[in-house]
């Protein structure tokens, strides 16, 4: 479990528009996405077969895993199809002076809060 709180990750220009980028912080690998003027962060691991979600195609506010096409909502971490197993953790994200901060301690997954 990551004990860090708000952590500066990278400058906004390092994330391409409508794409994701993976960042490893300690033991956690996160994927940060840029949608127009919003930045959203999820855990970079598809619960299906571990695919790198950062490399998926973004469709609206969802991302499609590049390996087998599982689809997750970037805002909630929930799978788009109810028949799909598992969801991914999401992390609160904000931008300050051109730097993306992620609150690594407040990951939440599905309905439950993952305790920091």
């Amino acid at each position, binding site marked *: 479990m990551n004990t860090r709180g708000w952590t500066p990750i990278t400058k906004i220009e390092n994330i391409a528009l*409508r794409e994701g980028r993976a*960042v490893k912080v300690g033991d956690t690998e996160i994927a940060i996405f840029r949608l127009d003027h919003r930045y959203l962060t999820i855990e970079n691991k598809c619960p299906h077969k571990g695919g790198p979600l950062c*490399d998926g195609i973004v469709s609206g506010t969802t991302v499609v895993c590049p390996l087998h096409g599982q689809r997750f909502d970037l805002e909630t971490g929930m799978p788009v199809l109810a028949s799909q197993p598992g969801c991914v953790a999401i992390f609160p994200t904000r931008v300050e002076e051109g730097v993306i901060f992620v609150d690594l301690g407040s990951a939440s997954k599905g309905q439950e809060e993952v305790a920091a």
Partner: protein
Amino acid sequence: MKRQLVVVGNGMAGVACVEQILKQSHDFEITIFGDETHANYNRILLSLVLAGEKSPDDIVINDIEWYQTHDIRTRLGVKITGINREKRVVIDEHGGETEYDKLILATGSSAFIPPIPGVDKKNVHVFRTLDDTRALLEKARPGLKTAVIGGGLLGLEAARGLQVRGCEVTVVHLMETLMERQLDATGGEYLKRKIESLGIRVMLPQQTAALFGNGRVDGLRFASGEELEADLVVIAAGIRPNAELGRNAGLEVRRGIVVNDYMATSDPHIFAVGECTEHRGQTFGLVAPLFDQGRVLASAITGNGGPAFTGASPAAKLKIMGVDIFSAGSIDESEPGVETVRYEDPALGTYKKLLVKDNRLQGMILVGDIEDEHVYMEWMRSGTDLTPHRRQILFPPRDADPGREVADMPDSETVCGCNGVRKGDIIQAIHAHGITTLAGVKEGTRASTSCGSCTGLCEKLLRAVTPDFQEETRTTLCSCVPFSYEQLRDIIRGQKLKSVEEVLSVYGNRKGCEVCKPALSYLLDMVWCGDHDEDRSARFINDRVHANIQKDGTFSVVPRMRGGVTTPDELRRIADVADKYRVPMVKVTGSQRIDLLGIKKADLPKVWADLGMLSGQAYTKGVRMVKTCVGTEFCRFGVQDSTRAGIELERRLENLFTPHKFKMGVVGCPRNCAEATVKDLGMVGQEGSWQIVVGGAAGKSVRKADLLITVETTEQALEASDLFFQYYRENANYLERSYDFVERVGIEKIRKETVYAPEADKKKLLDRLARSKEMAKDAWLERETPAHPTQFVQIQPMEAQRS
């Protein structure tokens, strides 16, 4: 002796009326005066000429031959300046007099030029005639700052046409919303969003106070004090009936020349038709009522009697592809007793509003989805009691019986508003000429040849009436952009769309998905021969980093080895790379190449640099490889130099994208050691000739390739290969392998349109291939100039700090 009929005005209304007269009577000797020098053309399509979708020739309705065939005297470029009603003569600008027994005034209308200081400056234009259009086309060029004054139908169409030509267009409109005469505020807002998403700026409400500039216009000054730079200004602020001739002759004229229900003016020998008229206080600016007027006038003037013209309920359709707007009837919801039923979906850009009074439809506004226009128009025309339809009024069910909609239409209903073709005309033509195809309907009736919005209805008519009608089957790309590949190619080309985002924002749901984004990326690349705005976010990861993603998120690297031929030096570098990056597996592929598996994304640029080889495109829907045998160079059976030909073939086509992966093989004799007959394209060497075979497969399905052609020289073989390759690129659906494509289209048709095509057509295919090839480059060069700073970089977090 024949009676003299003189028509003043050679526009749509006048000539359409003459066509009707000719159907009913041959008692007249007809003379037509036109102050424009052109034969009769379809004015409402000028915006398509401006946008480059049609040429001036395409919009000619009646060519000179037509006038000759019907013994009509034409005096083009001659302006009529007066009428002497006593003597029954018209007087032209040179003083010449022409006698008439009956006179038809069809003088049309002119652009209204608002009294703004500076409208007389250079580069201030109106948009009304073919000559106006030509003048605008001469001025239009990429980057030209252009202002269109007027946000009505014509202004928006002009704006789009100029923007397609590359101009930076701003529409300036006096009112709060666009097309306020046809739309309500919500509809206007939806329209504004669509127009803006096309890349046109919209300023409203904005009153132009003056045009400034020294001699030529430099910009607009608004009443608010703001200014807008503009090197070209188009005024589309409405039209005014050309009624002067009537007024000076002493006819009753208010806004237009006043006509009765039989299109007669206050002088029984003089009739008027079209936009110059005023009927029961109404003037006209749209095409459909003019055809009705023409029919009534023809019956009246020939003495056949017939229906009266009782006015027209307004109906307007915007002719900008992808911006579907239709409005008809009364849209005033403040009228007592009017109920409105509405539906809107902002994501789809769809807005529907129906105005119902006493359970009858009396007006509609349709934005973004005008599919049901004809159902609604019929309800409105016939005053259908809507009680049984109320539950489904916004989405009238598409009948399980496809002929039903057609059967519901009376023969008199207009199918093609642009050309005034009625249902009955089409049915008559189908029977008279044995028409079985849409092309036949177009040729026989001119329906569906203009804006194309009645194409669906014409097809339905054909299906219902023609026993052996063959419907074209079309595959829709996906629900994000619900169009067929054919339509999307046309849309991208016609609307000059250069990026996936543009296509999705104008024609789709603005989101796209993993299915349509890569497909649109391909279509844009193909249509623009590589000269488009590449958007990596629309591509699958393999095409973002030019390597093939593996199950653990690492990538495989396959360098190009043309024809499967390598060198000791290349092999040494491959071995060194495998050592240096601890490549977990090095594998010889089935395509005569070497695969380095398990490479990290961040290492890709370094690996490519160390290899010093070209991308083998093993990760993409593109030209994979040419597999060859050793041919005459070493093989004792070889009859053709297959390695040399294979290397050349690969060099010609490498780095290009295709609808699906594209594998080739070249063999030096029919023993077929490199399996050319199960490749997308194969060259099979024979004694003194090459067989070119296409559409082979040895994957999920196995299919022996079809023979395209046999040729004598290697150069001919390569050209035939190029032709098929480009034809497949342009006509296959995305993700359609060549073997499915060949089966779907049929090898005979493919032969006719490639190797047996006229030289000019072949040259066009080859030219487009050459253009694409010129733009294509080795993707691995992005190791030096990445598309994005972190395309390959593993981002390291900034130093962790608690906040």
